[in-house]
């Protein structure tokens, strides 16, 4: 536990030396004219009513907020070994009609890919939401989620910095008007990584490996093609996101090497759940969950025979990609 009484008595320059993230805090909260040689408490006490009004805060509130923020950041920075997620378990609940789901417990380990299949409206989103929310028999499906085989800490529900789940959605647009490098810099800053340069380099290289056409670090993210955006986002999530579970809502037909995208995510040791109707992606998974009427109907393990089909599909996929590239570079397709 931190002793906030001591922190209040620290001079601002000492405070910044010890907790560098506070410079970000002061900047975001519009604290100007800080006296670096006075303590935090003195600086706050110096604010007159007009300044407080401008800042939109109350005096007795500021210190409480700073205390809360420092606590959260310390907790976030000091992610400990026991916070590693090695597995999640989904324990059966009920379907839309209140009938028991037809399995007991599904344990998913780090490095595994689980696919989710089922018609539209069957309850795939609800399953993803149960995992994101760490359901504790308190959602409409009555399911329960365990982390590392145990009842999870409630912090997974509410902490904004230590999120359990990263979600790659179908829509992959960027809205920020920044270059790739500045964008990644900003993301790295919000995650407080120590060696942003190295990681940014790694993300750009990985993304360029996945996408058909290469992009530069100076390229504006809004200028990236659909495939390049997806590639960048997948690489960013794999490498920079601290969330141990990745939920993917279909990565289909977008000029991205899908198999390598999955390998990249798994290579960073995450639990991957993917909603998909693409047979090639589904067979890349270790298991698939079949959902119907809001409940898990069955869990199918990918068999050896199915893996044979995968080989066939990979040949077809390669042929498709070859043709697509040929088309892109103006070749006569009959020569490919």
């Amino acid at each position, binding site marked *: 536990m931190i002793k906030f009484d001591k922190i209040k008595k620290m001079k601002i320059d000492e405070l910044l030396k010890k907790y560098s993230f506070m410079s970000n805090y002061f900047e975001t909260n519009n604290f100007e004219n800080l006296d670096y040689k006075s303590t935090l408490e003195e600086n706050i006490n110096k604010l007159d009513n007009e300044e407080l009004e401008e800042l939109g805060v109350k005096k007795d509130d500021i210190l409480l907020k700073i205390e809360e923020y420092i606590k959260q950041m310390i907790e976030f920075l000091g992610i400990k070994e026991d916070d590693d997620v090695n597995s999640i378990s989904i324990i059966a609940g009920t379907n839309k009609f209140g009938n028991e789901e037809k399995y007991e417990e599904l344990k998913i380990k780090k490095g595994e890919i689980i696919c989710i299949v089922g018609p539209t409206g069957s309850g795939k989103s609800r399953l993803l939401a149960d995992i994101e929310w760490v359901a504790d028999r308190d959602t409409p499906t009555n399911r329960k989620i365990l982390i590392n085989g145990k009842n999870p800490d409630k912090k997974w529900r509410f902490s904004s910095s230590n999120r359990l789940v990263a979600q790659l959605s179908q829509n992959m647009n960027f*809205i920020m008007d920044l270059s790739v490098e500045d964008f990644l810099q900003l*993301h790295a800053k919000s995650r407080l990584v120590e060696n942003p340069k190295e990681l940014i380099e790694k993300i750009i290289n990985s993304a360029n490996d996945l996408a058909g056409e290469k992009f530069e670090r100076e390229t504006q993210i809004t200028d990236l093609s659909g495939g390049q955006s997806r590639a960048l986002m997948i690489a960013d999530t794999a490498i*920079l996101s601290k969330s141990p579970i990745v939920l993917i809502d279909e990565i289909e037909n977008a000029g991205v090497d899908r198999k390598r995208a999955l390998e990249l995510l798994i290579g960073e040791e995450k639990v991957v759940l993917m909603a998909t109707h693409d047979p090639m992606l589904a067979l890349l998974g270790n298991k698939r969950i079949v959902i119907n009427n809001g409940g898990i109907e069955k869990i199918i393990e990918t068999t050896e025979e199915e893996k044979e089909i995968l080989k066939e599909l990979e040949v077809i996929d390669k042929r498709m990609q070859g043709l697509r590239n040929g088309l892109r570079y103006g070749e006569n397709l009959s020569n490919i």
Partner: protein
Amino acid sequence: MNLITISGPPSSGKTAIITKLIKSFKDRKLNVGVAKFDCLYTDDDLIYKKLGIPVLKGLSGSLCPDHYFVSNIEEVVEWGVKNSLDVLITESAGLCNRCSPYIKDVKAVCVIDNLSGVNTPKKIGPMLTMADIVVITKGDIVSQAEREVFSSGVAMVNPRATIMNVNGLTGQGAYELSTLIYENDQHTDSVKGLKLRFSMPSATCSYCLGETRIGAEHQLGNVKKIEAGDLK
């Protein structure tokens, strides 16, 4: 009755979120009603009426909508009690991005969206920094990285809030939000004597009183000047 104040900038998705909340509350057999505050126009009341719940609509017209809210909340709460509601949701648009008429000891929710830009959390005042729960919407149209950057910006200006991503279209997260909002042992049957969490911006200048002419000699009351250096 549970009283809940929800505010947020225009088009942030308040109505979509409330619609999904109403469904979750109705599934749990709770009696829910909505009071919608707006400035010039709204037809959100029709959306709520379609869900078959009691709705009250208030347009502030030429008044500041948040001032209008505070001067009417007492009557709105009485209306809720008269309709034997279990949950009364009040929705107001934070039109100047500073205020929100949040009341002490009444649950306050701020709705903002991922599309509003990375610096937006810095630009919003007590409406964001004083909320108990911050709901971030439109997460499905931005990247995971942008979602993370945005919510860390929110956490910085309001470290005490519970920050949630909710999808107003599919409703992902809305059920969870409803469980955070409703509390069995919370009863607000009158707001008489309760206090606002933060004061509203001060006004009362000559323009408040109907002045339309421009120029220093026509300005009276609470006037603040931009620092543009010496112009003489």
